């Protein structure tokens, strides 16, 4: 494993079979096809990055892998065996832990209760909560991420967004036995904390976990990823190994390549350096920009992310 980082064709390429395989997986919500024909392999000891714009189907994809939703087409294989997780609990039992974008923390519950929610440590014949041990582990794990919470009995609602994010990441890393899925873990973080989160992704990889890193930031993805998948409108539009891709290519692909060129062409006329005299505007008197049909569609798609179950 130690030499795997320099060349792709040693351990990683051959002997390591995928732990999680998706073949032509699709998901429809009524007549909305959120995901269509997605195939991807997740290997342990690798970081698989899934990129895509809002509404590209990233969230749907991870909800299938983490057991929140069932796929409607194709097959998902765990260790080569076709599986359907009926619930997140089943996915966790198979060693898959997830950091959700909304973090999945109960706001009024204390830090340590949230950390161990669903995986409580118990002791004694009465199966009582082992509070002392849970608090100690929780404090240690958060400490490792550089988060110091003065009172683990405080409700998480009182903590900052970054602290909450770190709790969710620390929790998944602690409980993820084989695969961890991180849905936009750096979206709410500052530069420094993003760095910590990215380093944690690397640590999880080094520990032999399969890491799925969902983001819309190609820079963050390229810092840590072995494998890159770009989703667009529910389909895979790029599936490439790090060796076959530069950051520029990834950024361009992510921004839609051709579309970006068109965008810069269209925006030429806006004159970004111009300063206008201060003025007051009556209600509703700011003109709407002339949007092309594609742009209007793109705006609509922003809202198309399926409702939470």
């Amino acid at each position, binding site marked *: 494993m130690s030499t795997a980082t320099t060349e792709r064709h040693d351990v990683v390429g051959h002997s390591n079979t995928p732990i999680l395989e998706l073949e032509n997986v699709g998901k429809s919500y009524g007549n909305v096809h959120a995901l269509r024909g997605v195939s991807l392999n997740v290997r342990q000891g690798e970081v698989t990055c899934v990129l895509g714009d809002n509404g590209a189907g990233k969230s749907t994809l991870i909800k299938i892998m983490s057991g929140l939703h069932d796929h409607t087409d194709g097959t998902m294989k765990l260790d080569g065996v076709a599986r359907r997780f009926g619930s997140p*609990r089943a996915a966790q039992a198979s060693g898959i832990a997830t950091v959700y974008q*909304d973090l999945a923390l*109960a706001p009024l519950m204390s830090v340590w209760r949230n950390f161990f929610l669903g995986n409580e440590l118990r002791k004694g014949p009465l199966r009582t909560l082992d509070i002392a041990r849970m608090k100690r582990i929780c404090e240690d794990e958060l400490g490792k991420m550089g988060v110091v919470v*003065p009172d*683990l*009995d405080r409700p998480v609602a009182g903590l900052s967004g970054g602290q909450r994010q770190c709790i969710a990441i620390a929790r998944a890393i602690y409980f993820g036995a084989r695969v961890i899925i991180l849905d936009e873990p750096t979206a709410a973080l500052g530069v420094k904390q993003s760095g910590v989160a990215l380093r944690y992704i690397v640590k999880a990889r080094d520990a032999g976990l399969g890491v799925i890193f969902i983001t819309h930031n190609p820079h963050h993805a390229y810092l840590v990823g072995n494998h890159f998948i770009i989703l667009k409108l529910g389909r895979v539009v790029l599936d490439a190994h790090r060796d076959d891709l530069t950051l520029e290519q990834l950024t361009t692909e992510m921004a839609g390549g051709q579309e970006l060129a068109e965008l810069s062409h269209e925006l030429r006329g806006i004159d970004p350096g111009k300063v206008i005299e201060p003025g007051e505007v009556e209600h509703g008197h700011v003109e709407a920009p002339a949007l092309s049909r594609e742009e209007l569609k793109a705006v609509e798609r922003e809202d198309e992310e399926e409702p939470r179950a």
Partner: protein
Amino acid sequence: MTATATEPSRGLAARDDRVATRPLAARLLSRPEVGSLIAAIVIFLLFMAVAEPFRNVANVGTILYGASTIGIMAVPVALLMIGGEFDLSAGVAVTTSGLSASLLAWNFGLNVWVGILLALVVSVAIGAFNGWLLLKTGLPSFLVTLGTFFILQGVNLGVTRLLTGNVASADISDMDGFATAQKIFGSEVTLGPVNLKITVLYWVVLTVIAAYVLLRTQMGNWVFAVGGDAAAARAVGVPVRATKIGLFMAVGFCAWLSGMHLLFQFNTVQSGEGVGKEFIFIIAAVIGGCLLTGGYGSVVGASLGALIFGMTQLGINYAGWNPDWFRTFLGVMLLLATLVNMYVKRRADLR
């Protein structure tokens, strides 16, 4: 007690000096039951001052009895509220339970104990039905249980009149097994000058068990979680459905216990009874610090809420005030307690 164990490891990470440790008083004040404890003390002192019979030790039994009949139901209702749901059918479900036992035993000539067990099945099934329907339809529990409230109210009256031609169940005191059942559900013990009904024992035991389960077991953690954020709870592997249905069934179980007391205290059950009680249980839970939105609260608080009821109910009588004002007093209490809860919590959280 755990603070000392975790203190050394905390030193490893650099301490953020913007946050100081919160003083013990602040931590105590941020407990959910603080408002109800203060209110209970104030009301106790008030009636001690104005009502002469309130000071008589012999009346402690009567006051605690009144509190216990509410407390036995307020405890599971508080758990349910912490789990994020209401049960408006809890009041009439007590009557349904008492009627089931009495009517089944009397009509089929069964041993009273068979009726009691059948009533247990009925009560827990009502709870399970509430929970199942709620999760199946996704409707708010307010609507679902409002429906069962009216259904049960009608069934109580209709079935009783159908079977007995009367609005009350028949007297079952001469039936097999009545004597032993009355010992279990309706007896009392004398401790010095105080007569304690067995319901007081049930109330205290239920409170202790429920508080223990809520704060010291995995199930309790799940109750807080499904009330605080059901989607988050499910996402981290908490069985949300099972937890919520279980809570409704716990209310059903306690409704059975209350119903059995009702039956064996008076030998017959009035079929119209129980209407309006559901709000008393909910008020006790809210006074005890339970949030209407779920995810926060305390069963000890709910029991204190029940105690406040017991004291007020009799205190007003003992003080010679007009009992017409009892409900007004309750309403004021409810508002005051919730305001105090909110104020105290906000102050404590800031410290």
